[in-house]
Structure formats: structure tokens, C-alpha cells
């Protein structure tokens, strides 16, 4: 049967947030970033953007400006950036070059450029890069995905969004050039062999030191109340930023006043350029001198290009001659809605049974640990400054040798009183996306929330962001899976009580090969979660802490080896399990926690052993060792707290499955694997 859906975002994502109606959500879907309550003085903002096509054409520049762009979204809600997160999806690193589609850079070259671009911007601007992920899938060969996220903090009530008649249209920061022209359209069109030549200029050029000046100025201008509205100059450049800010009052802007990098730009080039490090502010005339002084002090350029008129029209001139004269109503409301056809196919229903792979547990486990998607990312994390601002309480790498992967990060923002913290985590699984978009949405929502709870976040105050990266929506099955993913987000959000506060979609992630074949990426949904810990001293890490402690498996874990459904469901008891686990953590009953994700229970146990350089003895049904499930975690509890812990979990699914041993050997049934072998496998990914 057929159904008509008016706007996926309103029908599924915004409606979930409205139904949950969480009192601690301050702003959702209406501003540059989502905003939640932090404490009586501060609010926390969060945004995640994608810079996929630019990174395919120019990896360093694409990733560099991806980081720079999302930082400006945080400045666009008057907040000071305090942490970055980057999720990167590449093709397989040892791909045979002859199999490379025409005009596509090799995945290894894309990875090295992207990682260097993220490092350059994050480190130089002084924002700690504390969270993220790196995934490898041949679906990303021609179309890498680069998700860049940023968290900000601001005093409550200082963010102003209402320009006044007579305010000056003010541009702060970098100069304008041809870089980034048609960036917006280029990012949403199918790529092909010529894309590099044709759209090379569309990739923007980053300059972190200029944006550092913007942070220095805007944080102080905010506190002095020097502006009435602020937004970032992103896609579409001045046309979007000034156009949106003047969408009610209308404005009269003069393009010759815009500071150029070099002469010779045509009016449309000035108006559409996506040159970086620029913010647009509405500033009352009497505040311009004070803002000018601030800008001079922090080496930032300020340009007054016009005024907010109040006549409801967008008027743009070039040397006095009118080049744009449009009615706001038509410009902003006049666009007809696109009508697209979606076909929802039944998900591919084959189930994987693990029996054959259990013949050799040790070999299987070591192979999982060396799988590039699971193996250690320390070599990348090490080149990102994750300590600047001194707020990183739970770090990306943890344990005795600081080489084990944390489930999430906890930040104690500098300058806040008390010891409240912010939790940052994410969930992503393209393999599930290929098979069942609806259940994939549930699984990645669960992963993001599970990771946050695993370090101590309160499951009842977690907000999420959605980032969809899909193929061409004009193909009805592609759009069908997008609709299913949105429906999954809606249902999962209501189940967990976690509202969406912002999001973004990147469509047309496709590559038209010379062979005429369309290479589409696997449907990829990133869920980024942000939570709160009441006291950072109660947050927890995943490294084993002491021999003879008990190991519990909490969550609805399949006891016998029934065939694994293709994409696991989320057990109905999950929200209860997370609430009770949170009580156990804040009650001090727990020594370490780690969630089950790729590679299942065996990999989770191995990672905990690596963290503490301690062993484990596990008594668990062998064929379920590598089952990928949702809603399950391993918890280390000292014997003295065992009864209290078990009482809290009384009517919930949990099981004591073993204990920690001082002999650094992971013992499962009669298989023994030394921790050194685990460490070696984990630190040496086997790329294909």
C-alpha cells in the first residue's frame, strides 16, 4: 500500500523530539547547532557536519575545512568550542590500484590527506580532538565519508537571534575569493572521472589561525552584548548567511565593500563564494566601534557591507547598481516542495550462523582484533591534541599503557564551577545499513547511547544528532531505505527517551564509473550522542582494575546458539538495564564497564584485558562468543559489591560469566590466549 509523507525530518525526527518534550532541551533543529542544558549557568551546544565530496577530490583541504566549518556552527550559537569528534570512512587501504575507478584517488592517499587535514585544523585552533571512529568498507572507495563534529559551551541567555532595523550587516574574519564556488551544489551532485578538474576550485581552503581570532572576538563580543544576531558563512557563502539573517527584515548590501583576497571577482562570485573563516553578524551602529577594537586586538578583520532595512526585500548592489532585488516571501517560502517516489523493499532476510567459525576461538578472536574496523586507532589518536583546554577526564585511549579504546569521552569544561561533565559518543554501522535500514537505525542509536552509559552518562539526559549519508534519492529504493532509517530513528528515540536536537543529510554520495556503473556508498547513518555526568569523579573506564573481581554480562544476551538474525533487534529491557547500570556506576559498585559491539563478547573481553594488562576466565556458550547483539555490556564488580550489584539487577537479564585473573591470560572454555598476543593482534591491523 502507498503512503504520503510530508517531510521526513518533520514527520520522524522533529516529531520524536516534540513527543519526548525533554525540559533540558533548549534548542532543537532551529539554529546552527542543537543546545541542551548543562548547569544553572551554562548550556552545551553540539553539531556534526559532513565534507564528503571535497575530501574525495582534495583530502587535506576537504577534511581541513570540514573541521573549520562545524566549529563555525558552534560559534553561530555564540558558544566557545571545547571538543571535536571526527568519524572517517575510507575504502580498503591495500586496494589493487588497477581496480581503482577512473579519476578516483587511492584510499590510502585519501586517508593520509584526511587525517592530516583534521590534525592541522584541530591542533592549531586549540580544540581537543577527543572522540571519533575510522571505518573501512569498499563501498567508500570512490566516495569517502568525513563527519566532523564540535561541542561548545556558553553562558545561558547570551545568544541573540533577532536583528533590528538599522543594524549593520557585518562580516567578520577571512577574506573572500573564488575558493569554494559552487561548493554547495558540488557536494550534492554525483561525482565522476572529471569531478577533480571541474570542481577542484569548489574545495575550500582552511586557515585555522584566522578562525582562532574569530573565537577570541566572538566569545568576548557575546559577553559585551555587541551583536543582535550571528550565523556562520557556510554553504552558499554570503547568499545563505545574509539571505537567512535578513529573511524577515530584508537588507540592502553593497558587494564592493566585501574584502577580497584578490581583485577581479564578479558580483555573483562574491555573493556565492564559500571562502572560509567568515561569520555574519547583525550589529547596532553604536556597537561597531567597540567591535572594531576587539577585532584589532585579536587580529581579525571586520567589514560593514550594508544595513537591515525592514522593507522585507533582499537588495544587493555592486558599485551602487542593483544586482539582486527579491521579495523575501518569494525567496524563502516560494520554493515548491519536491515530490519523490520511494519504494520500500523487504529487507534481505538471510541469517548468519556462527557455528563454522567457532572451530578455533583463538584464531577467530585474533583475526577480529586485527580487523581494521576493530584494531587500535592509537597511531591516529596520538597525532591529535586531545589534552588542550585541560578538560579531558575520560580520554580516547585508556588503561595501564594508555592504549585501550574508551567507549566514550568525558569532558569537564574549563571555567565551569563544580565537577559536572559532558559525555560524547557515537554509533555507526554501514554493514547493517546494506541489509535493513530500519533495524540499522535502532542498532546505531543503541550503540551511541550504550557507549555514553558505559562511561557514566545518565541515560535519561542524552540527546542525539542524526547524519544521513545516502545515494541518489531519485532512485526509489534508495529513498525507500532512507524513509525506513528515519522511521527507525523516530521509534528508537521514543523508546530510549533521547531527543534529536540537530542533524544533517548528505545525499548523492555516488560515483558514476567510466563503466557506466553507479558506485553508491552503503546507506550510512551516524548517530552522535551527548550526555551529562553529574560528577566527573564518578565516570568510569573499560580497563580491568583488579584480579579476582567478578565479570558480569548485563543485557538480554542470547543464551543458546540460535541463528543470529541478520541485523540484531534491541531487547525490550534495554532502557531498564541502562538505568540500573547507571545507578550501579554512580553508586560506586562498578570497577570497569565495556560495551559489546563489533566482534561481540569475546572482543569486548579481550579489549578489557588489554586495558588492564590482566587476564580473565570466562564460562560462556562458545557459539555465542562472537554474536553481535544490542543492549549488552561487560561489567567488572569486586566481590564485596557483588550482592548489592546483583540485587539492583534482580528482575533484569544479567549473568555472572567469570572473573579477572592475575595471570595475563584470557581463558575461554579450554582456549587460552595470552594478553601479549591480544595486544599484538590489536596493534597490528591486517588491511585488505
Amino acid at each position, binding site marked *: 500500500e502507498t503512503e504520503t509523507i510530508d517531510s521526513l525530518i518533520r514527520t520522524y525526527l522533529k516529531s520524536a523530539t516534540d513527543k519526548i518534550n525533554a525540559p533540558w532541551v533548549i534548542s532543537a533543529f532551529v539554529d546552527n547547532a542543537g543546545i541542551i542544558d548543562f548547569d544553572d549557568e551554562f548550556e552545551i551546544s553540539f553539531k556534526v557536519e559532513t565534507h564528503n565530496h571535497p575530501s574525495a577530490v582534495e583530502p587535506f583541504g576537504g577534511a581541513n575545512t570540514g573541521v573549520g566549518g562545524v566549529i563555525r556552527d558552534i560559534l553561530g550559537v555564540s558558544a566557545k568550542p571545547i571538543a571535536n569528534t571526527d568519524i572517517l570512512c575510507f575504502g580498503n587501504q591495500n586496494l589493487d590500484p588497477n581496480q581503482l575507478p577512473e579519476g578516483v584517488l587511492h584510499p590510502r592517499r585519501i586517508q593520509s590527506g584526511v587525517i592530516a587535514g583534521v590534525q592541522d585544523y584541530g591542533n592549531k585552533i586549540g580544540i581537543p580532538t577527543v572522540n571519533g571512529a575510522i571505518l573501512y568498507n569498499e563501498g567508500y572507495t570512490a566516495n569517502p565519508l568525513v563527519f566532523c563534529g564540535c561541542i561548545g559551551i556558553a553562558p545561558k541567555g547570551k545568544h541573540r537571534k533577532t536583528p533590528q532595523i538599522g543594524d549593520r550587516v557585518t562580516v567578520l574574519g577571512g577574506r573572500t575569493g573564488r575558493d569554494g564556488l559552487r561548493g554547495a551544489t558540488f557536494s550534492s551532485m554525483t561525482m565522476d572521472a572529471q569531478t577533480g578538474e571541474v570542481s577542484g576550485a569548489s574545495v575550500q581552503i582552511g586557515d585555522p589561525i584566522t578562525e582562532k581570532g574569530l573565537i577570541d572576538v566572538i566569545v568576548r563580543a557575546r559577553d559585551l552584548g555587541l551583536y543582535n544576531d550571528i550565523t556562520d558563512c557556510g554553504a552558499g557563502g554570503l547568499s545563505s548567511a545574509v539571505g537567512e539573517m535578513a529573511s524577515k527584515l530584508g537588507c540592502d548590501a553593497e558587494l564592493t565593500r566585501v574584502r577580497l583576497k584578490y581583485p577581479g571577482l564578479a558580483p555573483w562570485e562574491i555573493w556565492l563564494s564559500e571562502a572560509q573563516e567568515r561569520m555574519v553578524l547583525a550589529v547596532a551602529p553604536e556597537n561597531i566601534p567597540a567591535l572594531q577594537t576587539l577585532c584589532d586586538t585579536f587580529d581579525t578583520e571586520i567589514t560593514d557591507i550594508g544595513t537591515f532595512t525592514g522593507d522585507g526585500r533582499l537588495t544587493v548592489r555592486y558599485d551602487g547598481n542593483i544586482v539582486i532585488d527579491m521579495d523575501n516571501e518569494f525567496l524563502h517560502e516560494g520554493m515548491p516542495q519536491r515530490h519523490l517516489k520511494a519504494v520500500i523493499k523487504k529487507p534481505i532476510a538471510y541469517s548468519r550462523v556462527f557455528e563454522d567459525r567457532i572451530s578455533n576461538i583463538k584464531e577467530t578472536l585474533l583475526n577480529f582484533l586485527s580487523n581494521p574496523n576493530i584494531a587500535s586507532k592509537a597511531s591516529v589518536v596520538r597525532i591529535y591534541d586531545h589534552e588542550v583546554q585541560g578538560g579531558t577526564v575520560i580520554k580516547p585511549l585508556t588503561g595501564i599503557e594508555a592504549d585501550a579504546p574508551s567507549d566514550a569521552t568525558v569532558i*569537564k569544561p574549563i571555567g565551569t564551577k563544580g565537577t559536572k561533565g559532558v559525555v560524547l559518543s557515537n554509533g555507526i554501522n554501514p554493514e547493517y545499513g546494506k541489509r535493513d535500514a530500519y533495524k540499522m537505525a535502532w542498532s546505531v542509536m543503541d550503540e551511541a547511547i550504550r557507549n555514553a552509559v558505559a562511561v557514566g552518562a545518565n541515560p535519561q539526559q542524552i540527546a542525539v544528532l542524526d547524519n544521513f549519508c545516502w545515494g541518489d534519492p531519485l532512485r526509489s529504493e534508495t529513498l525507500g531505505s532512507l524513509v525506513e532509517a528515519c522511521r527507525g530513528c523516530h521509534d528508537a528515540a521514543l523508546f530510549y527517551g533521547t531527543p534529536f536536537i540537530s542533524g544533517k543529510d548528505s545525499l548523492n554520495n555516488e560515483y558514476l564509473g567510466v563503466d557506466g556503473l553507479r558506485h553508491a556508498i552503503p546507506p550510512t547513518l551516524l548517530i552522535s550522542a551527548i550526555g551529562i555526568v553529574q560528577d566527573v*569523579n564518578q565516570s568510569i573506564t573499560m580497563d580491568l582494575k583488579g584480579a579476582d573481581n567478578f565479570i558480569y554480562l548485563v543485557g538480554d544476551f542470547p543464551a543458546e546458539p540460535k541463528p543470529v538474525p541478520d541485523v540484531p533487534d534491541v531487547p525490550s529491557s534495554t532502557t531498564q538495564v541502562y538505568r540500573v547500570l547507571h545507578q550501579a556506576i554512580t553508586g560506586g559498585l562498578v570497577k570497569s564497564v565495556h560495551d559489546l559491539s563489533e566482534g561481540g563478547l569475546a572482543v569486548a573481553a579481550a579489549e578489557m584485558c588489554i586495558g588492564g594488562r590482566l587476564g580473565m576466565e570466562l564460562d560462556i556458550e562458545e557459539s555465542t562468543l562472537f554474536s553481535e547483539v544490542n543492549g549488552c555490556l561487560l561489567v567488572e564488580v569486586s566481590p564485596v559489591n557483588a550482592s548489592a550489584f546483583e540485587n539492583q539487577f534482580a528482575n533484569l537479564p544479567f549473568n555472572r560469566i567469570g572473573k579477572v585473573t592475575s595471570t595475563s591470560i584470557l581463558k575461554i572454555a579450554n582456549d587460552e590466549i595470552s594478553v601479549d598476543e591480544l595486544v599484538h593482534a590489536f596493534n597490528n591491523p591486517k588491511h585488505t
Partner: protein
Amino acid sequence: MKPKALVLQAHGSNRDFDVIEALTLAGADATGIPLNALRINKTLLSDFQLLVLPGGFSYADSLGAGKLLALDLASYFVDEISAFVESGKPVIGICNGFQALVKSGILPGDAEGQSTLTFNAQGHFECRWVTLRPVSQKCIWTTGLDELIECPIAHGEGNFQTSPLFPLSSFLDNDQIALTYSYPNGSPANAEYPINPNGSLHDIAGICNSQGNVLGLMPHPENHIHPYQHPQWTRGISRHRGLTLFGNGVKYASELN
């Protein structure tokens, strides 16, 4: 009376607020002063009892880490800075600040080109925690510190090397090695990576001038002033905080006038 500390905010400094918090906790009245504000009113510097060049990427590290800030110190502010240093007031340059002090010749002592901080031996930027052993008793920042210090490094050009103009022997003879990289138990790193994270000569992490009032170091003690900043605090380990080093500097400044 609380000593007044000036934290110099060059274009690109990004650990200014970290060190302001550390100095405040150590008992100083610390304020951030933008370089351009100082450019307009140079005499401002003399109102302060303690000067900090914080970590960051001043001037985006164009022409090499700390190079342009070094030019400011060695030319534009040469009179004010040398007066401050010669008066014996405590000065500390952290990471980018240390690079600027070395490349302006303030460290190790009144002439450029005596030593430098070049690219890490591992060939890339690195962020990890290290253990430091305080050495110099002449340096007012490290004298009397009997505990090790654990804190992060975050740099790409921290490889300390000397020149024949001021060889290693001069540092040893004049007690101008302030801190060295060491194992957690205090034994010397002996150039062993990652204990010595950047290939610095003689595991040198920080040096002082002959007077002992100016300290330059690559690691960031200002990022270990609270227990929950230590990477193993959840394992019950939160020792060797960086606060003691700032405590020394602030105490010395308060006893000056």
C-alpha cells in the same frame, strides 16, 4: 599580597586559559593580556611580577614553531622583556612559549643560535603523557621539588638540541637543565621512545637561564592540576601533579618585592 601574573595571548596561543587556571590555583592573580594590547602600552609589563608565554601555535607557527613570537620578544619588546628578565622576576615559557624563548635567545642565555627545538625524531606531532624529573636547584621553578611530575606533551617540534656555542657540558656545569624525561619510577629515559617522546638530547624536557628565573619546557604541567586529569585516575592513581611547579614560581614572585 597575591603576585600578579601576565599570561601573554599572542595570535594563536591556545593554552592561555589552562595556565591562568593553574596559576590561580597556585595563588597568583593571573590575567590574559593580548599581545596587541601590550604593543600599544609596553610599560604594562612592569606592573606584573610573573610572565607566562603559554602553549599554542602563535602566528600559526609560520616560519617555524615560535619563530615570529621570538622576533617580537627579540625586537619589538626587547627592552621591556630584558628588563623583566634581568630584574629576576619569574618567567615561564611552555611548549610554544619555550620555542619562542629559545629562538629569541633569552634561553639558555642572551644570544641566539645557542640551542633550538627542532622536529620530533618520530617525524610527527604527538600527544601523550610523560613523566618528568625535576633537576636544577638553581632554577626557581624546580628547586626543592622532590616529586616527579606527570603531564601531557602535545607538540611536533620539541626535539631539544644544543650547538657548540652552548654545548651540553655548559648546561651540566651551570645546573641549567631544569627537567628531564624519565620512566614512571624516576630512572632516566636514555633516549628510549616513547619515554623520551621527541629525541631531545640528554632527555632534556626543560632548561633555565643562568640566573635561574626563566624556565622553558615542552610538556604541559598546567594540564595536570586536578586529580581527574591524570590518565589513570580511574585506577586510583593520581600522583605527581604539575601544580607544585607553579606553586614554586608564584611563591618566588610573592617574595620578590
